[in-house]
């Protein structure tokens, strides 16, 4: 369809559509929910013309925070896929998200039990920075563990298998911590399933901070990710100091995963689906794919959260459940297509 258009125009159109969808998702995300607001009211409140606490205190931080979480997962997914030259590498499948969730839950239980930490979502409201840093260590350790178990990143099957094993073990450990405090199982469970309900302005601020830290190196290293697709030997032969660059990419992507998980729990498949859809429109050029995955992840998660909030209205589904229900079949489709090609 768009293949016939000149390259530059096709690429510009993709970004134009992504921005438009982002704006649409913002308005829809703020307008819809347990109580629906007319678009006019939403615009007025967004522009500060009228005061509407539902918009400014509840929905706006949730939608903006969700966009940042989605963007973080989209970029991290694209980076993992480029770094490991593996189209199925994703924060969820690599075990890093489970590692971050385990570390955050561990932190909460160390800080005087899970009950107070999760009772008022206090850990997210008051400790977004320590929670993210702790989650960062968890994400990084889990990623390394997955890589060690898989014997490197080259073999897709082993990588996914190792990631699933690491993720399951860590999720089991998280569940164990949860069970230590039966009163709060529900709240902690809602968190680990992936949930944007905990999003407030402090979380949004924390996300912005970590975004500003981790996004620039990733966006600036698109050329490195492109060169890596020719294999590590060729990339090194062209002069890239790969050891340092790969570590930097891994750290930056893990920081984004940790920031997302610390605020919103484990939200699967956004990092897998987003780059895949965009790769078809933008080619495998990571200089474009990374920023587009940020926009695409933001759109995707905001729309998924909209479903999570409205499907069973007035009750809410954890958004992680929605992304998993959408992402699981997509993953199967990818596996099936790869097998078809082999």
């Amino acid at each position, binding site marked *: 369809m768009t293949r016939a258009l000149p390259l530059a125009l096709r690429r510009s159109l993709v970004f134009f559509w992504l921005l438009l969808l982002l704006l649409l998702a913002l308005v829809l995300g703020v307008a819809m929910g347990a109580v629906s607001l007319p678009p006019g009211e939403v615009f007025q409140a967004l522009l500060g013309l009228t005061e509407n606490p539902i918009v400014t205190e509840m929905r706006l931080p949730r939608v903006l925070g969700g966009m940042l979480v989605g963007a973080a997962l989209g970029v991290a997914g694209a980076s993992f896929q480029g770094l490991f030259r593996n189209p199925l590498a994703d924060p969820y499948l690599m075990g890093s998200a489970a590692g971050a969730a385990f570390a955050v839950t561990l932190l909460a239980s160390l800080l005087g039990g899970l009950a107070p930490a999760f009772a008022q979502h206090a850990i997210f409201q008051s400790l977004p920075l320590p929670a993210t840093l702790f989650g960062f260590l968890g994400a990084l350790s889990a990623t390394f563990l997955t890589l060690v178990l898989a014997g490197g990143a080259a073999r897709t099957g082993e990588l996914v298998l190792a990631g699933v094993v690491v993720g399951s073990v860590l999720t089991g450990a998280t569940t164990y911590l949860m069970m230590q405090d039966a009163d709060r199982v529900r709240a902690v469970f809602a968190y680990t399933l992936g949930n944007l309900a905990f999003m407030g302005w402090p979380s949004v601020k924390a996300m912005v901070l970590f975004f500003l830290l981790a996004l620039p190196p990733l966006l600036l290293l698109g050329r*490195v990710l492109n*060169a890596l*697709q*020719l294999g590590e030997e*060729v990339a090194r032969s*062209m002069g*890239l*100091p790969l050891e340092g660059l790969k570590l930097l990419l891994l750290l930056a992507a893990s920081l984004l995963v940790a920031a997302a998980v610390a605020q919103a729990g484990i939200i699967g498949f956004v990092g897998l689906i987003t780059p895949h859809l965009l790769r078809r429109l933008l080619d495998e*050029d990571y200089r474009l794919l990374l920023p587009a995955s940020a926009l695409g992840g933001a759109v995707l998660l905001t729309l998924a959260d909209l479903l999570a909030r409205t499907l069973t209205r007035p009750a809410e589904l954890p958004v992680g459940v929605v992304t998993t229900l959408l992402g699981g079949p997509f993953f199967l489709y990818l596996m099936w297509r790869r097998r078809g090609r082999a």
Partner: protein
Amino acid sequence: MEGLEAKGIVGPYALLGVDLAVRPGEWVALLGPNGSGKSTLLRVMAGLLRPRAGGVFLEGKPLPAYGSYARGRLLAYLPQGGPYPEGLLVEEVVRLGRLPHLGLWGREGREDGEVVEWALEVTGASRFRGRYLGSLSGGERQRVLLARALAARPRYLLLDEPTTFLDLEYQGGLLALFQNLVAKGMGILSILHDPNQAALAGRVAVLKGGRLLAEGRPEAVLTETLLQNLYGPGVRVAHLMGRPHVYLDG
């Protein structure tokens, strides 16, 4: 001292003390049975593997003394097989070859564009410049990857079996391209499987069991005795138009 020289290379893996040099304007073909250490030697000379003993010298200076981008501008390396970006356009793949000149953040200038055009042209890859690398046949892809290596405008080209996947027409074209590049002053070291292709090079070096078995002009090296030692008693050599032609005695 001009040239790319390996001196007394011992290890890694099979290499047991190898000396080999490529001069500017010279095409050296590296021949040898599987497991003789050819690819390892090539990677050592590309600066990708460190030998346990001995060293590689580029224009008289030890290779590790070069900055990595400086090395990338002087030496280009093309492995055999290996991963490739299926979803990248051919032109973009060749552009990646400018990386040693651009570094991480340099912007492409007019000269970069011209060199990319030249590399696409001489490898015959211009025709499919707008296609995805994953959509090409093995031979077409090999030409694009060679164009990527040439786009660095290196002084020395290190190639691991560059003619694999190419049909006869393009094998011939590629070997003619090597002769052309060499005439313009490039030094080429290529591993070749086929002794008949090696016979077209200026010099042939034969590796066996990690040691250099013979080295010299093709007609001097590619003798029946040596080739039978390498590949078994069924190998015969005929001479046509002053060049050795190797065939199997059925």
